[in-house]
């Protein structure tokens, strides 16, 4: 503790005299902020809430933790390596921008850097992870001016970039998860499954692929526990539900979007399934397949990019549910959550504008 203080103070002192080291001020400033609370005092109001952005972001990571640990169990230690690559390259972009802009490093990338690998297929090459996160943070966030000003969810920008640039790697192979015993905790990667997958892709298809091709669907229990193919972090659904409810309980995530999103997915798929059972999957299956739960609890609720008005959150959730069912049932893509969320991000300013105009009619012209 004292050693860290000593080191930070020394670096700070050297930085003041040496312009070269001084350039890296955002880095050691961020470390300083990370390890120690602030010494600033309030003006008015005289007291402030104890919650700060660091804790806010770490709570989101805590909510993702069950799914992250489960991902190592299902996909082997390579999953952790993917997360590390994502953090290293994502963090590097953040740091470079902070240095060139001479601004503080913001904590937002801690969440982006974890969500991004969780929505990738487990067999993705590591260099692609790096390309994706760099693209996502650069064009999803930094070009708009950094945290708080971005229009799109940076993790989804990276993911969509990858699925358009490398469609084969992103949707052709799906690994079979390790199940039973210590699972992936004693393996690096399920190589066996990978070689087989090229020969017989359908065997390890995701549940949504199976529905599209008319295969036998996994049971709801298997879907909940994660015994199915899919992206790294989306399959352990019971953990996602627990994490999401935890975040709603702690008020980190606003409950309105997940509730309206999931409810409208149920309603729209129920209606669709009633009339066209071959096109629309049944409601509960929709809920438990693909990235719906991960998207509803952790990505659609990103406060920066979702509507901020209360009514806008309800409307946004319904739009999301509608889009997800539409894309899953009619488009060439089997999965629609990420496109739905990015489409909602586009409409967010419009929704908020309309809600504000209705809520606050003109007092003065």
């Amino acid at each position: 503790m004292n050693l860290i203080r000593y080191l930070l103070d020394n670096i700070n002192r050297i930085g003041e005299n040496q312009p070269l080291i001084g350039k890296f001020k955002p880095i050691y400033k961020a470390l300083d902020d990370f390890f120690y609370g602030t010494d600033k005092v309030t003006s008015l109001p005289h007291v402030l809430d104890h919650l700060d952005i660091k804790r806010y972001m770490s709570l989101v990571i805590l909510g993702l933790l069950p799914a992250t640990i489960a991902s190592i169990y299902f996909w082997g230690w390579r999953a952790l390596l993917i997360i590390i690559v994502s953090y290293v390259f994502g963090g590097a972009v953040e740091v470079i921008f902070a240095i060139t802009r001479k601004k503080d490093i913001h904590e937002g990338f801690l969440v982006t850097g974890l969500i991004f690998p969780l929505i990738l297929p487990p067999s993705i090459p590591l260099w692609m992870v790096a390309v994706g996160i760099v693209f996502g943070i650069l064009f999803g966030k930094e070009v708009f001016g950094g945290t708080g000003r971005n229009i799109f969810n940076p993790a989804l920008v990276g993911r969509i970039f990858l699925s358009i640039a490398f469609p084969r790697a992103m949707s052709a192979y799906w690994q079979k998860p390790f199940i039973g015993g210590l699972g992936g905790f004693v393996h690096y990667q399920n190589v066996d499954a990978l070689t087989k997958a090229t020969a017989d892709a359908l065997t390890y298809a995701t549940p949504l692929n199976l529905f599209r091709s008319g295969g036998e669907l996994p049971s709801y229990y298997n879907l909940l526990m994660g015994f199915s193919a899919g992206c790294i972090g989306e399959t352990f659904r019971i953990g996602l539900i627990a994490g999401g409810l935890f975040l709603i309980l702690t008020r980190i995530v606003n409950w309105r979007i997940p509730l309206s999103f999931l409810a409208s997915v149920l309603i729209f798929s129920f209606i669709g399934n009633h009339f066209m059972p071959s096109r629309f999957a049944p409601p509960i299956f929709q809920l438990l397949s693909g990235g719906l739960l991960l998207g509803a609890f952790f990505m659609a609720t990103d406060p920066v990019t979702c509507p901020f008005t209360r009514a806008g959150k309800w409307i946004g959730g319904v739009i999301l549910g509608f889009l997800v069912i539409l894309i899953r049932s009619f488009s060439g893509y089997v999965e629609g959550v990420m496109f739905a969320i990015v489409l909602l991000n586009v409409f967010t300013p419009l929704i908020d504008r309309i809600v504000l105009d209705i809520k606050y009619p003109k007092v003065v012209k």
Partner: protein
Amino acid sequence: MPKHVAFRGGYRFTNFQGQPENIIEEFFVPNIVRIPLIQGFGSELDCLIKVGDRVFAGQIIARNDQNISSPIHATINGIVSDIRRINYFGQNCAIVTIKGDGSSEYKKIQEKPANWQELSIEDIEEKLYLSGVSALGYSGIPSQFNSSIIKPNEVKNIIVYMSDSDPFNISPELLFSDKSVQNLYDGVIILHKIMPNATVYIATSRNYRNILDGLDDQLNKNDWLKYRYLRSKYPQNHEAMLVQTVLKQKFPYGYSSASIGTIILDFQSVLHVYEAIVESKPLIERTIALCGSAWQKPSIVKVRLGTILDDIVHSRIKDGIKPRFILNNLLMGTELKDLSLPIDRSYSQIIAIPEDTEREFLKFVRLGFRRDSYSRTFISNFLPLFQKEFDTNKHGEERPCISCNYCEEVCPVGIIPHILSKYVKRSIIDETLANLHIYDCIQCGLCSYVCPSKIPLVQHIKEGMEMLTEQGCTRDKCILPHFDNILGIVDSYRGAKEI
């Protein structure tokens, strides 16, 4: 069963360390008092005395029947030693210093108190005015004298409230220590006598419901008397929130509740009314709560007005703590920097919390047994056994807004602080701000309190209002057209004191 009334938003401060203990401590009669000639609202009074005069406690030393004000009394027996002008809370104001002889007697307003029920309305009003009690409350008690901006017969509603919505509260049992609920009821009757057209609402927090137990008969007897329960969430004590919840009326934000014919008084003020009329006691002392964790023993003291703060604070602060003193309200109150200033009749709490400049190691991962947060990210939200603590640390670095919407969720008046703040920060000052109801802000400070990005939202909104007024889009243009029942609005009425 009284009706429960509440407003949307707000925040409940519960279980904080530093609640005053339930004992009233009689403070000794000070040897020296300083009496400012502006106290609370109203304009400065004409001084009736000069240096060297002998004065007695209860003697009127300043009055002005032309402007809106109530007389001010000497609060101890002694000799006027000094009259000088100082800067008192941003106002240039004369302050009278009296050196006392230590005796505790005071002179009653009228030597022979008649049975109060036989007093005529004019007599009651005069007594109330001469006692100085008519200066209490958010906008004073109207009388035939200029003690409030409206006349007694224009008053439509009187709200008498007692709630536990602030972080620190005086318990009602304590206020009634040498009085009874019957006295409160008599006070209410007196008020209704002066203002016969008014409906009186007694509004208390549900936790205090048993204090009015003895009053059931009287409550049911009068159809001008109504009873309401308040939710204990901050800022219920603000006049705007009281009007909206109790009366279900729109409030002209930024103006006084008197301008829509509503007089708001707390229990203590009503007991002062009783004292003035029945016991002929001038307003020379007040019961003040010393709360907050920096006091050695948070308590309640009965002090003479004009007692110098330092006399009270002296030796009551915990050792080794640098305290910050705050007047009346933890979120909106003024910081008391100069302890040579006296206590005046607008005081009800002196809060002392420790200044915390310590940089705590790995602060953001602490469990937080004693930390308060709007979010439920600290364990204290689930463990009511631990008392939470206030300090003045900012608890985080300032960061860009992430639109987490906490500020909108807690805002009691239904505006969205974070968009207003973004407009003001980018210097986009135009009618948009007025259309987003920037003038509705009552500056309760909750949005700044809950913000995880530590953005000073209240300051931004305040700046925005000032800049907007400079541009000509004033409060009058935005608020007043929506009210046809505004009674009298005097710009200088509030003086320099913000609401």
